[in-house]
């Protein structure tokens, strides 16, 4: 894959990818953009190893997910939830405010559940694809989805 082909692919997919990352980062668009940039650079550096261009999206989402996980691991102490909520309330625009309850609910889900729910409902990936992407079994993904769903139901119906 040449750099021109890579850019062409990125232009076509970046909105969906960034949207997924914004949800994964619970509304932190700046962090999502940083992770997206990191993930694209990692993808660019290893795009020669990608044989099947049709799998570009799934491959990219996998890199994005791994980048997000390593970012979370490197950040030992995440900002306190309430603090984040306060910042969000002060600085958010109407559009972000619209999703504030969703972000709060997503923030309460464990990473694996959140990722499975987002990939399944937002990006339309199958359970098998999610299992490959998260490097886990299909049963584990089904469990994440079921738990994530019930958690979301509980959290969003309370609000």
């Amino acid at each position, binding site marked *: 894959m040449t*750099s021109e082909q890579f*850019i062409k692919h*990125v*232009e076509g997919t*970046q*909105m969906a990818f*960034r*949207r997924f990352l*914004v*949800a994964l980062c619970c*509304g932190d*668009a700046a962090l*999502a*953009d940083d992770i*997206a*940039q990191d993930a*694209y*650079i990692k993808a*660019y*550096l290893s795009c020669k190893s990608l044989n099947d261009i049709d799998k570009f999206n799934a491959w990219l989402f996998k890199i994005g997910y791994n980048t997000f996980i390593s970012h979370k691991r490197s950040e030992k102490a995440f900002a306190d939830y309430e603090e984040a909520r306060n910042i969000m309330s002060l600085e958010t*625009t109407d*559009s*972000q405010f619209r*999703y504030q309850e*969703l972000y709060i609910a997503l923030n309460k889900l464990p990473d694996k559940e959140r990722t499975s*729910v*987002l990939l399944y*409902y*937002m990006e339309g990936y199958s359970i098998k694809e999610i299992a490959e992407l998260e490097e886990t079994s299909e049963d584990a993904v089904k469990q994440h989805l079921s738990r994530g*769903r019930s958690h*979301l*139901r509980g959290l*969003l*119906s309370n609000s």
Partner: protein
Amino acid sequence: MEDDKIKELFTNFQPEMSSSLQFMAKLQKNMERVEILKQHSLAIKKRNKLAVCIAAAIGFLMGVILTLLFPLIGSWVSTFSISLPHLQISSFTIDYSFVGWIIMAVTCIITALNAYEIALVKLTPKESI
């Protein structure tokens, strides 16, 4: 909340993000930086390889020259031991040929290492020093 509602919630999810143009411009800038770094590290690898080749060639050449000169070195050592009889070098029963080979090997290694260092300095562009 039902399954369809969750699906609907995420399907209609349109968060506020920075513009695509801005994002792509930043990405292209980062990719250019990556290219520069890649070229730089490639040049360093090439330079190191060349320096190793030069050092190996010079070390080999030195080895050949010293091997050819070995009989002369042997005669020079024996002349030296005869001219200094009071030191009684021969009474130690030193194997001069073995010592000679050791000296040759050490000389070759030192020459090769020096050649490597000099080659690296000479091959490095002046701006990056």
